[in-house]
């Protein structure tokens, strides 16, 4: 068979496979991402059925997938919302970073991967998946709960922090000595602040530039602008993902709302390709020795997220059960962790890092939504009630 036909057959079969897996995932009530990663592993290097054709499509598709993930994330928030959250929940965000980035950094140092990998691993364990958590809160009927704004504003801060973290990481990964490195970090951060300033002050202008009543015109202008800025950002070593994220933030109002609607199917397709790509490029041979560290890391960082949520909810006066719910909700890591791992490995950090990150994300993404149901159980409610009653008694005494 000629090459073109083979490529179509392989890509078609893969996407169809992903479709079937996603159906299974939605039946089980969990995110399809873990399944797609597993499928990628099965077809990847050292997997069951090595995948040979259509690599180009998958590679470029994966890159577009990251850009679309970040662009859509930016569209969810307005610049004003980000700044307001940053002001309101600064302390909680800081606690979140300290508690959750540290275990990741430590494990990278313990495994002897060096300081740059430590920065990458710190990001991987720090950021919860806003997509998975928001979906989960909706599924569990917790959107109107009082602790939900606490959880969401932590997610917003984490996402926002990525705008600064990713450029720093990109600069570190390129790594050309102390002075050149510092210069590229400074340039990267200046670029982020500049785009952020444009988003805050002239968001209306950007929105008007892309706005159109026709769905196809809107799709092409938003996607084009997103890819263009992402490319320019990558050219300036700021990380393409951050460029796309900032474009998303700059677009607001009806333009953002409609753009979200027209871009969602594209995002779903290319994000799936991206997760598949990560699975494909992770060597299953690397995965097996990383299982034990991944489990250990998952247990530790699920604990630290629990603590983060508990503390953050307590600070705003949520009662005992709500604090636990906030903690459990924050557990799943996801797309950002994978994006970070992808960046790190593409830049030549130890390939075991991708394996560790993949295993880690698989564990937290599957365990997180299951564990999040614990605070709804009868036994847990009784236990938290007892804790609260005891505390009141102590305070009264």
């Amino acid at each position: 068979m000629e090459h073109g036909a083979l490529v179509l057959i392989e890509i078609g079969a893969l996407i169809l496979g992903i479709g079937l897996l996603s159906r299974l995932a939605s039946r089980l009530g969990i995110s399809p991402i873990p399944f797609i990663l597993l499928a990628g592993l099965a077809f990847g290097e050292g997997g069951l059925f090595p995948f040979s054709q259509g690599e180009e499509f998958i590679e470029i598709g994966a890159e577009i997938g990251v850009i679309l993930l970040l662009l859509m994330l930016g569209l969810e928030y307005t610049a004003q919302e980000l700044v307001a959250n940053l002001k309101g929940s600064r302390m909680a965000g800081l606690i979140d970073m300290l508690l959750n980035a540290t275990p990741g950094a430590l494990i990278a140092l313990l495994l002897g991967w060096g300081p740059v990998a430590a920065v990458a691993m710190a990001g991987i364990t720090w950021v919860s998946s806003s997509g998975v958590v928001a979906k989960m809160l909706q599924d569990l009927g917790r959107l109107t709960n009082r602790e939900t704004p606490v959880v969401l504003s932590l997610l917003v801060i984490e996402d926002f922090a990525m705008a600064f973290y990713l450029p720093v990481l990109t600069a570190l990964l390129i790594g050309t000595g102390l002075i050149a490195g510092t210069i590229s970090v400074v340039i990267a951060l200046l670029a982020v602040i500049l785009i952020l300033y444009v988003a805050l002050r002239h968001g209306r202008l950007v929105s008007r530039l892309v706005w159109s009543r026709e769905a196809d015109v809107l799709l092409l202008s938003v996607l084009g602008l997103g890819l263009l800025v992402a490319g320019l950002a990558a050219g300036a070593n700021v990380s393409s993902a951050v460029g796309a994220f900032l474009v998303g933030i700059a677009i607001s109002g009806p333009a953002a709302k409609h753009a979200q609607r027209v871009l969602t199917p594209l995002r779903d397709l290319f994000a799936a390709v991206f997760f598949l790509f990560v699975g494909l490029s992770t060597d299953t041979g690397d995965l097996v020795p990383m299982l034990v560290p991944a489990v250990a890391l998952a247990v530790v960082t699920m604990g630290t997220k629990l603590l983060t949520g508990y503390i953050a909810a307590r600070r705003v006066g949520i009662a005992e059960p709500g604090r636990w719910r906030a903690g459990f909700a924050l557990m799943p890591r996801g797309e950002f962790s994978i994006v970070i791992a992808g960046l790190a490995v593409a830049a030549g950090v130890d390939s075991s890092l991708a394996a560790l990150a993949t295993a880690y994300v698989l564990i937290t993404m599957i365990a997180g939504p299951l564990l999040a149901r614990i605070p709804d159980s009868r036994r847990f409610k009784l236990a938290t009630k007892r804790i609260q009653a005891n505390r009141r008694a102590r305070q009264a005494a």
Partner: protein
Amino acid sequence: MPAHVERAELPGIGVRHDIVTDQGRRLSVLNLREGGRELALADVDDPDRASETIALTDDEATALSEVLGGSLILTQLAALQEQVAGLSIEQIPLRADSPFVGRPLGDTKARTRTRCSIVAIVRESTVLPAPGPADLFESGDTVVAVGTRDGLDHLVRIIAGTG
């Protein structure tokens, strides 16, 4: 005694309004950004948690508010809102601690500051349509305003005395 309404932003999702009743029950209305509403009733034992959540369509929400004593004018305005994209309507409660209790409508400078129009004042079960700048606010009034989403949010803050 006017009801105390609390507002909380859910970034990326929508806005939640809470009413804590005299009996201590919390009632929440969630306006989702992508349209649609949820009505939730908090758990008796754990008031932070919703024990029951009901999704309402726009029509159902309008019907519910009418049953609860909303007036005809609101139905008409809700229809207007559907016709004109980008235009929203908000019912803003005037709480006892608002700086505008006992002051004329003109003092809010709503039109110049937020580009929103105050189209009606609902007082107990009567409606004062198309109020003028000299009409006085009373504690417990509901101010019905039409404008852009941002403008209305600004007006809510002005009326609460925080903007």
